[in-house]
């Protein structure tokens, strides 16, 4: 190595490093400088803002979202630019990656005191509240946020943190207020060609479901040269919760409260597997397996093998939610094989149960919080309020008038080419237009709520849904005298008093988490074992499973949880419960 090249190499490296560190520290100074210089102007501006005019001096808020948002485009999308133009606000957003949850990053925040201005903390909010990082929003909402107040309505109790600390630490944004489901996308699924050939038979109980599959597979043992699969479930990791264990309580009339079942009169919580009805459900699955109707590879295959089997069109029945197998179904639709797609049925164990999937949990979801690092909480709450206004909600859901939708005779209509991109190339559509990227920033109405012009706030409403059905689906629905799959479901079920328990913060210290993990491991192992067992062994295996749960401390965990549920009901409804 010649001396000259070594020297010049090290000189180059050194200067490169110095340059870069200088550049980055410049950026820091710029950022600090700009937010610093904002202070005097916003102080004067907020005085004028009180009089009602919207302050639009440029300001940047930093944000952290605990859920991944891979299509986030730094507000360079179409509606992002409009938001900045109308409110002056630019959001410098950071999202968690992959499965999200934000545990690592929020732990760092709590320990180091570095907080973003706004945060969507989901399950980790407790850590930040304990660190004193979140401000109480009660007064801010009361004084500066008329639109938020309208959305909250009478439900202020539900926004409070706990019985001991009745501050409002987050405004619920991860769901729609007064959400109505216009279509059922869960339940049990059967391929449309099966329904057509068998003359649209009644499918109300698991026995009906089984008979339909048995009859069809006897007539058509192969599909396109490959063996037909009557029933397929996805048991890959957490997806088994959706297809294997959750249907156990759905089919036996219980609503979705995560892994628990809460008695509506005593408010006692227990793991839902302990219900005798669910044993019967799993016994039915065991029966399906031993009859050869449940695919032999169910518990060893991975998610992409599951999707591939569905996309090949040879799976007659599924027990799942549409978003879970949606990709595979789209592949079928793209190939024009609409009769191989699926219809939905609210199947229950027997006719004494009703499917409670569509029960409303009321307002109970995680949302946006403002931290103590935020230099202008008043401006922030006004910004969130603007997003929650009618104008804001329409922008976030529908887009820009004339670009993403048109108003014809007073009704909002999405042009066909925009709808096509939205349905078929959703990822890119989100990235360029921004529709769907901003909904968790503020409170919003759910499907089915109409604004003062008689149009719906969201783009999911009956006419739209029916328009997106394929001809095969419409024909099948006609065979059942229904216009949407939801018509087959029971309606008018009461709102749950305890909200949705999967949103309730579970205690992070003490034995609770340890026992919870242990019981989850037992469930993951034992349920497949019970389903794959020989029919005469089923009861023994299931009894062993329940015994294992109690041995791992399930009863202690349940009593802790029951205490939390009772407190929650007290907080939400004001009832006094022992």
């Amino acid at each position, binding site marked *: 190595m010649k001396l000259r090249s070594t020297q010049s190499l090290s000189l180059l490296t050194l200067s490169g490093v110095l340059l870069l560190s200088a550049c980055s520290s410049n950026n820091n100074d710029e950022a600090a400088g700009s937010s610093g210089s904002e202070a005097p102007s916003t102080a004067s501006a907020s005085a004028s803002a009180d009089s009602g005019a919207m302050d639009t001096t440029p300001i940047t808020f930093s944000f952290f979202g605990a859920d991944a948002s891979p299509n986030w485009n730094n507000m360079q999308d179409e509606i992002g630019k409009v938001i900045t133009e109308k409110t002056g606000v630019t959001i410098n957003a950071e999202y968690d990656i992959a499965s999200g949850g934000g545990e690592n990053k929020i732990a760092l925040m709590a320990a180091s005191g570095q907080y973003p201005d706004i945060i969507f903390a989901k399950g980790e909010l407790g850590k930040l509240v304990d660190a004193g990082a979140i401000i109480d929003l009660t007064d801010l909402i009361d004084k500066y946020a008329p639109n938020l107040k309208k959305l909250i309505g009478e439900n202020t109790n539900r926004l409070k943190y706990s019985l001991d600390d009745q501050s409002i630490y987050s405004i619920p944004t991860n769901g729609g207020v007064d959400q109505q489901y216009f279509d059922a996308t869960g339940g049990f699924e059967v391929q449309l060609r099966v329904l057509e050939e068998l003359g649209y038979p009644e499918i109300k109980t698991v026995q009906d479901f089984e008979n339909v599959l048995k009859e069809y597979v006897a007539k058509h043992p192969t599909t396109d040269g490959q063996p037909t699969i009557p029933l397929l479930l996805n048991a890959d990791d957490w997806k088994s919760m959706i297809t294997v264990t959750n249907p156990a309580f759905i089919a036996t009339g219980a609503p979705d409260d995560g892994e628990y079942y809460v008695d509506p009169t005593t408010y006692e919580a227990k793991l839902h597997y302990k219900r005798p009805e669910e044993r019967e459900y799993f016994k039915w699955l065991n029966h399906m397996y031993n009859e050869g109707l449940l695919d032999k590879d169910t518990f060893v295959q991975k998610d992409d093998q599951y999707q*591939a089997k569905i996309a090949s069109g040879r799976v007659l029945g599924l027990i799942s939610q549409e978003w879970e197998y949606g990709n595979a179904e789209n592949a079928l639709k793209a190939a024009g094989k609409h009769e191989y797609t699926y219809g939905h049925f609210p199947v229950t164990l027997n006719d004494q149960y009703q499917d409670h999937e569509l029960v409303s949990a009321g307002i109970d979801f995680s949302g946006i919080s403002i931290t103590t690092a935020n230099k202008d909480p008043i401006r922030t709450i006004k910004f969130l309020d603007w997003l929650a206004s009618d104008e804001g909600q329409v922008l976030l859901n529908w887009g820009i008038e004339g670009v993403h939708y048109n108003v014809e005779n007073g009704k909002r209509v999405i042009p066909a080419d925009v709808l096509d991109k939205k349905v078929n190339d959703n990822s890119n559509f989100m990235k360029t237009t921004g529709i769907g990227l901003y909904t968790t920033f503020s409170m919003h109405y759910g499907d089915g709520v109409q604004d003062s012009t008689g149009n719906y706030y969201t783009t999911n409403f009956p006419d739209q849904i029916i328009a997106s059905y394929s001809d095969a689906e419409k024909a099948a629905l006609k065979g059942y005298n229904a216009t949407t799959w939801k018509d087959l479901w029971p309606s008018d079920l009461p709102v749950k008093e305890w909200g949705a328990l999967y949103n309730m913060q579970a205690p992070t210290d003490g034995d609770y988490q340890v026992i919870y*993990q242990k019981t989850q491991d037992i469930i993951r192992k034992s349920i497949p074992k019970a389903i794959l067992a020989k029919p005469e062994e089923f009861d023994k295996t299931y009894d062993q499973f329940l015994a294992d749960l109690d041995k791992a401390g399930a009863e202690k965990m349940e009593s802790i949880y029951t205490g939390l549920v009772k407190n929650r009901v007290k907080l939400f409804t004001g009832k006094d419960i022992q």
Partner: protein
Amino acid sequence: MSSKAFNLTRGERVFSIANYVVLTIIVIATVYPFLNVLAISFNDSVDTVRGGIYLWPREFTLENYETIFGYKSLLTGFKISILRTVIGTILGLLSASMLAYVLSRPDFRSRKFLSTFLALTMYFSGGMVPVYILFRDLNLLGTFAVYVLPGIVSAFNVFVIRSFMDGLPYALQESAKLDGANDFKIFYKIILPLCKPVLATIALFLAVGQWNSWFDTYLYNGNKPSLTTLQYELMKILDSTQQGSAMTNANDLANKMAQVSPESIKMAITIVVTVPILVVYPFLQRYFVGGMTLGAVKS
């Protein structure tokens, strides 16, 4: 060489065949996944869901690559990844070799103490939160320096280079001293050229480490899109199927699934992220062999 084949005993021939078979299996097992990813990245995204793509794309398309090269953040990530790999490697090499030289000199008085001290750092670490707080206090958060400065001296690399230097005859240094060279000259003109094989190895470790790291971007530079790296961009669009410790719910999962990137886009980004380092590797190969025979000493 071929004449040797005729003289192999039967035992040697059997071993030879078995050797070839095992090695071929290993090669196939290693190369196949990569070819699979390559094939899927060239395949149409809707068609990919049908599965069954092994070595050859069924519906060839360049659309996936077109789409991802349009992502501005990917281009920024490319620039930053290359910068940090080059700068991080050079800095790491220089500092590790300098420290190794000092520790290899027998006349260095604190040699034993420093070596033990350095070795201890290999086993203990502060943990995620204390390190984060340290970086915050040093104003390293949100800067490019956080990629290259912390861990600039890796104890493991120092020890590897030092062992190599210990193998070089001390006579070389003595004779250089007699000729009036100072320590720096000895280091640059005599020791370093002889260390080419080990330097190439360490350079490869450093380069691959820098190229592949995303966790530091995630922890320290997550809120700075201008400092993103290629791997972090890839991580952002890959969805993992692990369940968090909190109970997940159907509504949540549904929201997440709506944002899942198509499989073929994920594969395309994987290829884009892996290929540069793959390309660099063969060029470093020749340094492993060269430099072994330089400066022979008659001892």
